[in-house]
């Protein structure tokens, strides 16, 4: 009750803030003007690439639906958003949008009629995209087949369904601005920073958010919880142990293929690689990796408070049972020493997901298994079986505790009741 009261008070304060701080900025909607392009075919091709890097299609396409016709439901802590149609259909898509309209959405988070967009559309990142690149994405979206698909309403909890509140939210939490290159850094580093913080919108998942849904800048890319999806996006600001160039090459391989010598992507990141990152040029993938590896480590998000505490004695029992299960069911692929098999089965020692403050990823991998994405460079991925049919909650807790506390790993033990919560976690 007290929490709700605080929310209402803070929302009221935000509403006052709009009136007081109404910014001149929004009165001048187009701070950069469109520059005509001579070669429209090349512009569309570049726009297609940028739309892939931005992963527009992932959110704006329903499962099995027409590409870019919207209709995908996105569950968040604030309710369920349903993405709109961004094909060039006049009645239901972007058909009547001008390039300036598109720019205002990408750069200012405003719809065509001027109302503020919810930041589930990651304009807080897309605002860093240059006008020329936004125009290219627009040109590409105009070139795809139009599909008639009316927008469906969002189903948001109160007070988030009050869209006018977003005026205040934007004023407090959103500063529009195209990426400004850092002259101290190389061209590749700047390209990496531009892609990570702009089109790639990595922080949408990998940065934790405050209660108002705003990314915490002090914890940029330090890992984030996908609250309604029950996944944890691991920290991207970890200093690599290998040399910077070797580490960049390994990470670039992971982004473009879905697997690397020690890693494999899964869960939501498998979708990101499948639909977006596999199309990165090698140069761009290396630039992203190089930029991420240069980041100073920022403050990690707090460990989840709702995890059950596990006593020392019970941890011992879990470890014993976990070792037995691991040797029987896991070691054939991930190896006794947790080192995995290069490019096939990921290493579990020093694995950011296994060691994450929340054990949710490790729990869900044991429960659901999964394939790495089938990419152009790894078209026939190896997979892991789901153990949910055969393992009890305490079996999963035991084997995850064993992984989190072996081979130099040092993370908290996991209680069976924390496994039970994820048995029915959403799969898409």
């Amino acid at each position, binding site marked *: 009750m007290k929490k709700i009261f605080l929310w209402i008070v803070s929302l009221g304060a935000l509403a006052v803030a709009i009136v007081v701080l109404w910014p001149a900025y929004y009165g001048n909607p187009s701070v950069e003007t469109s520059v005509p392009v001579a070669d429209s075919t090349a512009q569309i091709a570049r726009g297609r690439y940028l739309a892939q890097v931005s992963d527009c299609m992932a959110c704006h396409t329903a499962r099995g639906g027409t590409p870019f016709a919207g209709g995908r439901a996105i569950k968040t802590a604030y309710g369920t958003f349903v993405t709109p149609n961004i094909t060039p259909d006049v009645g239901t898509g972007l058909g009547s949008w001008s390039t300036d309209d598109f720019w205002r959405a990408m750069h200012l988070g405003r719809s065509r009629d001027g109302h503020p967009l919810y930041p589930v559309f990651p304009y807080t990142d897309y605002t860093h995209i240059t006008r020329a690149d936004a125009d290219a994405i627009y040109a590409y979206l105009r070139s795809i087949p139009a599909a008639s698909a009316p927008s469906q309403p969002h189903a948001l909890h109160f007070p988030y369904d009050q869209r006018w509140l977003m005026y205040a939210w934007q004023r407090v939490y959103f500063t529009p601005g195209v990426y400004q290159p850092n002259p101290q850094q190389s061209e590749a580093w700047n390209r990496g920073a531009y892609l990570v913080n702009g089109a790639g919108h990595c922080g949408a998942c990998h940065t934790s958010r405050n209660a108002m849904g705003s990314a915490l800048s002090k914890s940029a890319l330090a890992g984030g919880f996908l609250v309604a999806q029950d996944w944890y996006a691991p920290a991207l600001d970890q200093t690599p142990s290998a040399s910077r160039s070797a580490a960049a090459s390994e990470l670039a391989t992971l982004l473009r293929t879905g697997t690397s010598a020690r890693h494999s992507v899964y869960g939501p990141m498998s979708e990101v690689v499948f639909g977006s990152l596999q199309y990165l040029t090698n140069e761009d993938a290396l630039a992203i990796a190089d930029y991420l590896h240069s980041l100073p480590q920022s403050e990690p998000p707090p460990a989840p408070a709702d995890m059950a505490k596990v006593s020392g004695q019970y941890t011992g029992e879990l470890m014993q049972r976990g070792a037995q299960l691991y040797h029987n069911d896991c070691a054939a692929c991930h190896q006794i020493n947790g080192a995995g098999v*290069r490019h096939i089965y990921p290493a579990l020692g020093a694995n950011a997901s296994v060691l994450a403050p929340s054990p949710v990823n490790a729990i869900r991998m044991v429960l659901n298994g999964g394939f790495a994405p089938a990419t*152009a460079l790894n078209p*026939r991925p190896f997979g892991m079986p*789901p153990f949910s049919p*055969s393992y009890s909650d305490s079996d999963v807790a035991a084997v995850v505790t064993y992984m989190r506390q072996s081979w130099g790993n040092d993370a908290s033990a996991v209680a069976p009741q924390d496994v039970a919560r994820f048995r029915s976690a959403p799969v*898409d």
Partner: protein
Amino acid sequence: MTTMQARIVHKVMGRLRWTTRVLGLVLAVAVRPALAAAPAQIPDTIEQRLKTCTVCHGAHGRAGNDGYYPSIGGKPGAYLYHQLVNFRDGRRHYPTMVYLTSNLTDAYLHEIADYFAAQNLAIERTEAPTVGPEVLARGEQLVRNGDPGRKVPACVACHDSSLGGVLPATPGLVGLPHDYLFAQLANWRSGARKALPPDCMAEITKRLAPDDLRAVAVWLSLQHASPDARPAAKLEQVPPMECGSTTP
């Protein structure tokens, strides 16, 4: 050889499984030397890749004895392929299958389907509920003769008189667990399971009563499957309905 060329070659050879495998190995060495560096104890085979599937569907696609997972070994390849695509594209909703197929390509799903289609049909017997003789009689009647009054064709009219299925895409109905069979029929009736239109199974199940679905599921689950039975090469008679799911 560029990656694009390799992809095209891979696609063309998709149906020739062995050739593809050999070619895949050659490409793996040529295109990505790092991949070939895997230790010898992990065989570079489709079986190894599909450990994900066999934990529930049994080695070689034979279902286990825990009552639910269908046998997939020896089912028509195009049927299995359609089901994998249906899970991926939102026409079937079993959460684990939706999750596992989400980021796989048509080409890989084809290879997976063809692998299991080439295995034997044999499966373990599973438990069926005990029912009265009148229920069994109703089930057998629907399977063999249908219910002309309700415009329901017989199962055998499409799934072959042996109930072993028909190439390329009509599955066999014997050797499946009762719970699985009943769930599929009920899901079709409620719209939770869909096939490509025209969705004839949705239509048929809607013409039947829930008790009829139960009778069919029980009777089918009690029939013995021959281990080396294969789907019939073609349907002997003209099918009574047009079904989108029977396309190759």
